[in-house]
């Protein structure tokens, strides 16, 4: 460093920094996703890997494209913050494992361009980009988005090799019926619609599984690995417990009450907690910095809202799964929550008035 640059700029305090950075945070979240992802590859084989890779790739590509079109001078720096990779990764986790290639590309476009860059880039988006893409894909292309393959270790058919996997991924050939399976939530919804009691329906239906031995999205079925990733984020202080716990409680409490009242109509709390994207949503989506409130009280309200809405949508709505919808609805509520949940300023009451001075201190 030359003396010229040394004296060039004066900076306000502090002159020390804790060392945290955006890229480090993003990297840690990716690290936390890794176990569930690798396990997902094992469960669903090469097609899942292709889907994961292409989703991330298209997110990064659309990020570069948007930055170039907007004429941002810091393309490289923005790219290396890791946020586009993380968005793609999270989106891939929520997609059906054998979704065809164009789902990944369209999903990447919606997530990055419509979900994020249109709002002004990192930190400006109101809605979680991955959830925007997930919901847009689901309502636009319901068929490929609800086609669930059973985990390969559970299947009787041989695991597709690399080349046939590539064919499955690129040609969107119909998946053999023997390989598909309904999710627990989907099964329950269908059977209820047919007027069949849950007790009977679940008797023959899919089982619950902590380790992902059930049909579901690529990255969300192994609840225990998602939980481990969440705990890692908690310990490294990337996230706090408020939002995840609130999400889980928001689902579990109404589910437990309703199940106790009418077990034939409502799924148990356990079934809710271990189904769909709930674990992933609680630890990785509800804790998204940009789209969640920034006070702990706000995060608890936000989480409870996601949980409750998820349960309502799953129990009464048209779709079997509701995490993504619930997240988007609560994202929209975030500015309002932030407006009303503010920390108490030291020396002031909640309304911002200075504290009373005691008479005889």
């Amino acid at each position, binding site marked *: 460093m030359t003396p010229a640059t040394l004296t060039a700029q004066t900076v306000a305090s502090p002159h020390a920094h804790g060392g945290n950075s955006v890229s480090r945070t993003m990297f840690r979240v990716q690290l936390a996703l890794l176990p569930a992802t690798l396990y997902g590859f094992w469960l669903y084989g090469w097609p899942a890997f292709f889907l994961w890779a292409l989703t991330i790739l298209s997110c990064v590509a659309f990020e570069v494209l948007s930055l170039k079109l907007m004429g941002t001078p810091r393309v490289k720096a923005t790219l290396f913050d890791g946020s586009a990779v993380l968005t793609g990764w999270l989106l891939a986790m929520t997609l059906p494992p054998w979704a065809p290639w164009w789902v990944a590309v369209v999903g990447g476009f919606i997530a990055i361009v419509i979900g994020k860059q249109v709002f002004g880039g990192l930190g400006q988006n109101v809605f979680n980009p991955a959830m925007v893409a997930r919901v847009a894909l689901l309502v636009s292309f319901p068929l490929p988005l609800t086609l669930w393959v059973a985990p390969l270790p559970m299947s009787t058919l041989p695991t597709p090799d690399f080349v046939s996997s590539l064919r499955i991924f690129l040609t969107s050939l119909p998946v053999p019926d023997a390989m598909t399976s309904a999710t627990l939530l989907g099964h329950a919804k269908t059977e209820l619609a047919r007027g069949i009691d849950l007790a009977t329906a679940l008797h023959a239906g899919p089982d619950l599984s902590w380790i992902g031995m059930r049909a579901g999205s690529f990255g969300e079925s192994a609840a225990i690995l998602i939980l481990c990733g969440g705990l890692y984020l908690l310990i490294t202080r990337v996230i706090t417990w408020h939002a995840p716990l609130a999400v889980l409680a928001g689902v579990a409490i109404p589910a437990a009450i309703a199940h106790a009242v009418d077990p034939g109509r409502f799924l148990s709390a356990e079934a809710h907690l271990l189904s769909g994207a709930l674990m992933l949503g609680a630890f990785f989506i509800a804790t998204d910095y940009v789209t969640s409130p920034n006070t702990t009280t706000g995060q608890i309200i936000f989480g409870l809202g996601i949980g409750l809405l998820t349960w309502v949508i799953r129990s009464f709505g048209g779709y079997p799964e509701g995490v993504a919808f619930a997240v988007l609805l609560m994202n929209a509520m975030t500015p309002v929550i932030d407006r009303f949940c503010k*920390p108490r300023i030291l020396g002031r009451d909640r309304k911002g008035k200075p504290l009373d001075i005691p008479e005889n201190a």
Partner: protein
Amino acid sequence: MGFMNLFKHFLGDDWGVHPDDRKRPAADRPLRVMPVPEKLYLPLQQHLGGPARPVVLVGQQVKKGELIAEAQGMISAPIHAPTSGTIAAVTDITAPHPSGLTLPAIILAADGRDEWIDCQGCADPFALDPVEIGKRVAAAGVVGLGGAAFPSAVKLTGAARSKVKTLVINGGECEPYLSCDDRQMRDRAADIVDGIRIMLHATGAREALVGIEDNKPEAIAAMQAAAAAVAEVHIRPVPARYPMGSEKQLVQVLTGKEVAAESRTFDIGIVVHNVGTALAVRAAIRDGRPLISRVVTVNGNCANDPGNVEVLVGTLAEEVIAFAGGLKGDGIGLARRVMGGPMMGMQIPHWRVPVVKGTSGILAFDAQEVAAQEPDPCIRCGSCVKACPMGLLPLEMSARIRNSAYDEAVGIGLKDCIACGCCAYVCPSKIPLVQYFVHAKGELAAQDRNKLRNDATKKLAQQRQERLDREAREKAEAAAKRKAEREAAAAAKAAAEAAAKQATETEGESA
């Protein structure tokens, strides 16, 4: 980051930050006393409040401890000659401030004899009237040595007037790198306790609570030993956490009381002083010696031999560094010069800046320590909200300041910001949040000044208009009055004439 910190983090009781303190090995090195330099540069404003007014002439001989500039105004402090010598100049020098602007100062050329003026000490300070103690402390130019440099006498007498019950002594020294208070507590614990007792007497407080962060076990042990026989002085170790040494935070941790916003600690019966100030008060009362020197920590990766140095006020930082072992490789790799601590200290443009009464550290940082980097966009992670010891929303405030919505920023607590730097320290995007807040406070102050000036101008214009109106009115009234008088006079004259005529007529008739 110990287990307890992690536990507290989960509970949400996690204000402030836990920076790597970097106090050792500097804190463990014995204190070095720097000899008198050739020239001393004494800014007239080394304290909060009005600048001092020089009472010496260029060329005048002064002795060590002689008054060279007197206090001006209610809140101010006098300045004394740190050594004997000749007044070389009264001129402008570079201020210890990032702007590099100048400020008026007295330059003293030392004569090398270091002759003291006659000092009037006092053998039994406890027989003195508290008001007298306040006067002597004021005359000795004692200011808060923790960094803010508020005139101590104002606080002592104010506390006595407000009838405070508790004297809180700040030995927290929560800023990383700094160890000047630590060193003094280890070396001069008995004198500090003596100074605290004098302060108790002066303020009328019943007990003194000395808060020392638990990363200074030697200082705690030394102070506990020194205070063992003194019933009213309690040594209270407090958890090491920045900004523990901030007044409101320390008061809350030690007494459980919360200082209301827009009010002072006096209002809840507490006054806070620094440990170094206790020593300065003791010197002022026991020995009658003014505040002319202080202990400064020289530290940072670029410092050859980090440690604590006792220097005369007015010594250039350059000379202090040279005495303390110089810089590694003559300053190659030096990335930033800081006066004070790394969290709240000021970047200075060059080393030819004097040590003033409030200077606690001279830090030479390399690039790795300052980790300067271009800021990324805010990702709303809320780290700053968790870190803020005042319960503010730094990210919201900075967003508003970026849009020049200063009033909105004030509405969400800008005026409560203590500029401790916790938010910027934890920010993953490295946004210079404190810079935003300082900028906004400056803008608001400028707006206030403008408003005052506009109001004054308006008032003057209004008064002028009123005066003109009044004058015109008075003129008109006077004219009307004169006219009336004239008319009255004319009428009277006419009446008199008529009367006289009548009288002649009647006379003629009667004749």
